[in-house]
């Protein structure tokens, strides 16, 4: 069987040749090992550089609204693993893109690598070469990383992103064509795994954690800018009239920024982890998002990005919603 990359390139060429799409948002090899980079493919030749593997971590749905605006009238192909696909569903529900303007090229995701975890394994040493298991469904789990004076083999489960460890939806819920075979959903995975540790902590301990994380934030907004659902033309943190919160590194201001972003993405966040991966200082506030996701699921019975038919929970209501917290 042809490798997933070969199949992907083949299909991409065909889509372009048949004018089914005018361009394709995908990935190509990045300039550093363990990284791939988003890639806008316009020609059949360029399609030859497309890849999809354990390094394809960016959420490509982020680019969809902009690529769409910049290429009016074009039909856009987009390579989607599970979480990208769910983001696309959200974007369609929220009226940011039209279903008929896009062609979703589904790929089966085996998780993406957290480069920070790899770096820990190498004792901080730079990785110069890697070899990855061949996707999909090869059963390959070994990742070989090499650097100056070392060569180690890692089990992929040890270095996958936290969100991947809890992933229930490795395939996009909606696609026009699929590369390879959809993966079995991994019901063995606990979707709220990231919460395990946190739910054992006291309120004081959680406060210390969140305050500490927030105090390291440099307000670069890379987390927001990587999030496919943070597409507001003017974000509340950029508003100056009124200026809601200070723009400095004060931990009250930074934590409030994160809390409000979590509220704005409540019932919409698809747990892709792009925000965590984008952070240059390694802040991990994901448990707050997961906690909200859990509340949304338990309270409103909703999981984001799975269906075009359901109204997102915070855009609607039920007269019988629980109100145990209201006096």
């Amino acid at each position, binding site marked *: 069987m042809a490798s997933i990359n070969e199949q992907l390139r083949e299909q991409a060429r065909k889509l372009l040749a048949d004018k089914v799409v005018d361009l394709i948002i995908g990935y190509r090899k990045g300039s550093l090992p363990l990284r791939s980079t988003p890639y806008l493919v316009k020609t059949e030749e360029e399609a030859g550089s497309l890849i999809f593997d354990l390094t394809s971590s960016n959420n490509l749905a982020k680019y969809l609204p902009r690529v769409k605006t910049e290429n009016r009238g074009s039909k856009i192909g987009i390579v989607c693993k599970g979480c990208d696909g769910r983001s696309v569903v959200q974007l369609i529900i929220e009226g940011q893109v039209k279903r008929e303007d896009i062609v979703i090229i589904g790929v089966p995701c085996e998780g993406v690598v957290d480069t920070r975890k790899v770096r820990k394994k190498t004792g901080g040493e730079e990785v110069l070469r890697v070899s990855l298991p061949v996707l999909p469904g090869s059963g390959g789990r070994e990742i070989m990383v090499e650097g100056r004076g070392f060569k180690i083999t890692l089990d992929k489960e040890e270095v996958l992103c936290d969100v991947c460890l809890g992933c229930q939806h490795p395939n996009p819920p909606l696609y026009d064509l699929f590369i390879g075979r959809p993966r079995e959903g991994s019901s063995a995975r606990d979707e709220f795994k990231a919460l395990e540790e*946190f739910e054992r902590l006291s*309120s*004081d*301990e*959680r*406060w*210390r954690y*969140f*305050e500490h994380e927030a105090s390291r934030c440099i307000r670069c907004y890379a987390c927001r800018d990587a999030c496919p659902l943070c597409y507001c033309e003017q974000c*509340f943190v950029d508003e100056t009239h009124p200026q*809601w*919160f*200070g723009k400095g590194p*004060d931990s*009250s*201001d930074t*934590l*409030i920024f994160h*809390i*409000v972003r*979590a*509220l704005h993405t*409540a*019932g919409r966040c698809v747990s892709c982890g792009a925000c965590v991966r984008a952070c240059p200082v390694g802040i991990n506030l994901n*448990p*707050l998002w997961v*906690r*909200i996701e859990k*509340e*949304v699921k338990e*309270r*409103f019975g909703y999981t984001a990005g799975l269906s075009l038919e359901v109204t997102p*929970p*915070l855009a*609607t*209501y*039920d*007269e019988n*919603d*629980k*109100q145990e*917290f*209201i*006096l």
Partner: protein
Amino acid sequence: MSEGRKPKTEDQPWQPKIIAFLCTWCSYAGADLAGVSRIQYPPNIRVVRVPCSGRINPLFVLKCLQNGFDGVLISGCHPGDCHYISGNYVARRKFAILKTALEFVGVEPGRVQFSWVSAGEGEKFAEVVKKVTYDVQQLGPAKRLVKPR
């Protein structure tokens, strides 16, 4: 509002500052009724009148905590009574998530509370304010999310 009388807790020198966002059609009128009926309640609340509980943006709550309020009370019309039909229903969902988020990051439960109080419920309004004031008194001055000046 009552005319600034001290609550019966003279042994506690510190008094919490609580901000209350009250829907003008119900809870605000309920507060008014408590006042004209001379029902006693603690003078710790500062009232902000809003057109509907649906008008209350979570940013208001966070901003109040940041600027040194020790507690926040949000009060609107009972389900079914909202003058804009669904303002309070939609708000209820927003509030549930706000409460989850605040408590998860470690803001004490009790700092931010919610109630439904109609224009006819002067008694209930007083009870709610008593409860919220008591809870916040027990928690002590707010420290979390407060921005040092």
